[in-house]
């Protein structure tokens, strides 16, 4: 033991410099790549119900993951919440998450929406659907993502940039379905059909359709819901692809417990609570997403888009194949 004054000095310094978790009462610390407005209401509800405080820091996935890795066993974070299966897969791959053995989570979250090694669990589902102009496209013309490569869409397709992870995981899923050579042909077909250079956001894709620059595009449904709330007169409709085929490409936002969590038991309780019917309705409803827990009905606005068939493949595949997908899109000239 070092002499007491030295200890006191260090403690004082520690308080001045930061706020080490070890000095504080039991609470869960979360690093979150899901935005504050989409998680704080949940944490508030949890604290109200259980009395356990939740502290969180938001940032982009990449920096948060780098931070977890750099902090190692001295991290304060008990839980990592992030969007996109690719990021969850990468977090598990780098070893910052621990397996969680929880019958509750296994019961609440379908197997395709969680890590096969139980290191992360999907908490909300984001579906990537087709959007089209009701004036220039008949709904029955819309078949699948693959079909968007066919010459009938020449000069009529709008896509968001390939730099967005949603498109990276969509292409990763196509690789899982068809293998690389066939997928590269599909992506080249998309590029050949583009009406304009790829757009910067899902909203821009829909606005381009609305403005008549193109006829069909691919977006996440919650962007459609949000834009429709903003501009009720939007001349854009949503369609589910792959009704007869392999199903709609879905992605998740999800969470895992860190390897060096200081409060793993508390963190697990929070994670289980987040998968419970009560929290699930809130979680998905905050951003017009779909609940990951199949027992929970979707928000009325979301349900209005009709039922869809989700791709049954495990979302972890998207993470595993993301790198390949990015390189493939570069080769195909999809910017």
């Amino acid at each position, binding site marked *: 033991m070092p002499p007491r004054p030295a200890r006191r000095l260090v403690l004082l310094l520690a308080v001045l410099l*930061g706020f080490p978790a070890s000095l504080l009462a039991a609470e869960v610390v979360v690093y979150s790549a899901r935005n504050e407005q*989409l998680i704080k209401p949940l944490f508030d509800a949890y604290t109200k119900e259980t009395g356990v405080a939740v502290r969180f820091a938001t940032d982009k996935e990449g920096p948060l993951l780098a931070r977890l890795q750099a902090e*190692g066993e001295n991290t*304060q974070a008990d839980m990592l919440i992030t969007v996109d299966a690719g990021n969850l897969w990468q977090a598990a791959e780098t070893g910052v998450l621990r397996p969680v053995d929880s019958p509750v989570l296994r019961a609440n979250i379908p197997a395709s929406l969680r890590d096969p090694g139980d290191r992360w669990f999907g908490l909300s589902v984001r579906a990537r659907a087709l959007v089209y102009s009701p004036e220039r496209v008949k709904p029955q013309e819309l078949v699948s993502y693959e079909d968007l490569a066919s010459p009938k869409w020449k000069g009529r397709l709008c896509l968001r940039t390939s730099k967005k992870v949603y498109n990276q995981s969509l292409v990763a899923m196509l690789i899982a379905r068809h293998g690389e050579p066939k997928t590269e042909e599909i992506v080249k077909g998309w590029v050949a059909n583009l009406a304009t250079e790829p757009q*910067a956001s899902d909203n821009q894709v829909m606005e381009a359709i609305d*403005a008549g620059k193109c006829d069909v595009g691919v977006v996440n449904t919650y*962007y459609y819901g949000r834009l429709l709330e903003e501009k009720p007169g939007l001349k854009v409709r949503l369609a589910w692809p792959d009704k007869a085929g392999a199903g709609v490409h879905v992605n998740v936002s999800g969470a895992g417990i860190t390897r060096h969590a200081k409060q793993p038991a508390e963190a697990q309780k929070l994670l289980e609570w987040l998968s419970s019917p009560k929290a699930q309705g809130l979680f998905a409803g905050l951003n017009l997403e779909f609940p990951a827990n199949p027992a929970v009905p979707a928000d009325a606005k979301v349900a209005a888009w009709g039922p869809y068939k989700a791709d049954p493949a495990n979302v972890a595949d998207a993470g595993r194949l993301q790198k390949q997908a990015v390189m493939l899109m570069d080769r195909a000239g999809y910017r």
Partner: protein
Amino acid sequence: MRRGTAIARTGTRRPPLAGRILRSAALGLGATVAIPLGVLFSVWATPQTEVWAHLAVTVLPTLARNTLALLAGVAAGTAILGCGLAWLTARCEFPGRRWLDVALMLPLALPAYVLAFVVQGALDASGPLQLALRQAFGPAAPSLEVRGTAWVVVILSLAFYPYVYLLARQAFLGLGRGTLEAARLLGLGPWGTFFRVALPAARPAIVAGLSLALMETLADFGAVSVLGYDTFTTAIYKAWFGLFNLAAAAQLASLLLLVVALALLAERRLRGRARFHETARGAPPPRLALAGALGWLVAGLASTVVAVAFALPVLQLLTWVLATASVELDSRYLDLLWHTLLLGGSAAFVTVSGALIVSLARRQFADLPTRAAVGLSALGYALPGSVLAVGVMMCFAAVDNGLNALWQSAGGQRLGPVLGGSIAALLLAYLVRFLAVAAGPTGSALERLRPSTIEAARSLGTRGGDLARRVYLPLLRPGLLTAALLVLIEVMKEMPATLLLRPFGWDTLAVRVFEFTSEGDWRRAALPAVTLVLAGLPPVAWLARRSALQAHGD
């Protein structure tokens, strides 16, 4: 000892104590910036050949072309706008000059990506302009797309010209009556005076402003993403977030850094032994009156720049605020504002002090270590923000891990993070990033200081703290104020380091903007963005006034 400065320069004797402290402080600052950069360079130990080979055959040629075109375009754009407008407001008289002088600095407070988003939203296919055109002319209406090199250059030039404007303006204001009268006596007209006297005399300031604008351009990710333009920096993020390869991203970033370092070195070489001393004494020289139509034309041009780069975007934000404020505005905004100003103000103080130390050391010592430290200290600004933030974070984490190991081996319990997530660490990160920003105006102000002024003060018996207080500070104040203003505004807008290193609960306005824009929710981001801009206005206006007054020693 009295002639310590001169002796230190020739290096024949040990410099006095004050000089040695100054030199060590400068070396320390150089190391502070160099360590996180070194962490990034260390990734070359594991070459990412697969990623490099892939990038080289697919996207690198386009990226290099895009990046070079962008740099050339923004250099020309910001130089013309910045120097031209600075000359007009500093040395000419025209209607509305007094308020335009301040208003032209305002675009500083508006992040480039906000400008990009608003301009694109206004002019794109779904914007009001094209909507009206289509209603009038049907589908045959002309359409334009706000993308491609020309548009990116225009938008970034409008966003970044204030760096050049601010520094050039300060230099032009400082031109002495004597210099300008000499130019006239030699037969130079207004144009000749501008090109052959004012521009060369303001070279250190203009170069400092241009290098800030270009480093900002190189590191920009927000605006180019909004405009769908691929640059070297977008490739860095692609390697990191898309290929999950932080090492490859850091390698790309370190190449970027190398290019910037070489460019800065080349400029120093080209400048050679030229010196730029100038003392403005007595009454300020008379302004060139632009009478009649010419005056109004100039006023119109300057107002247009302010309107496009500032007023219109802010108006657009305000219309969004009106739609969302009822949901968004709550008592937390006071906290956000307080955090923003407190961090900005403290960082401005710390960073400008650092810049002053570095600049003074550069003036007094010419040895290799000092020059290297000075050069290194300018590089933090050239990296994309997130990359630098991660480099700094890794250093703090390493220190924390070391401290924890040490403490535990001494029998203590785990300390957890000490530096990580502390205010001290955040300020240090700002220092690393913005030292270059503060060093520009500080250094160019120092270069214009005549050594004879200092010698005279010394010979009158002024030295030590007195010399600093009564001679250096008053003469340098306009430069230091400009530096403080720039750092304050930069820190207020800063996102990546704030996000990654802020203590729990220390959200700022920029963090709030991030929360919304990262999910594409621009309307809700308008309130924090407008608050950010409004918070930046008083310091901009105040400092503009003061620096204009004090350029002539009051």
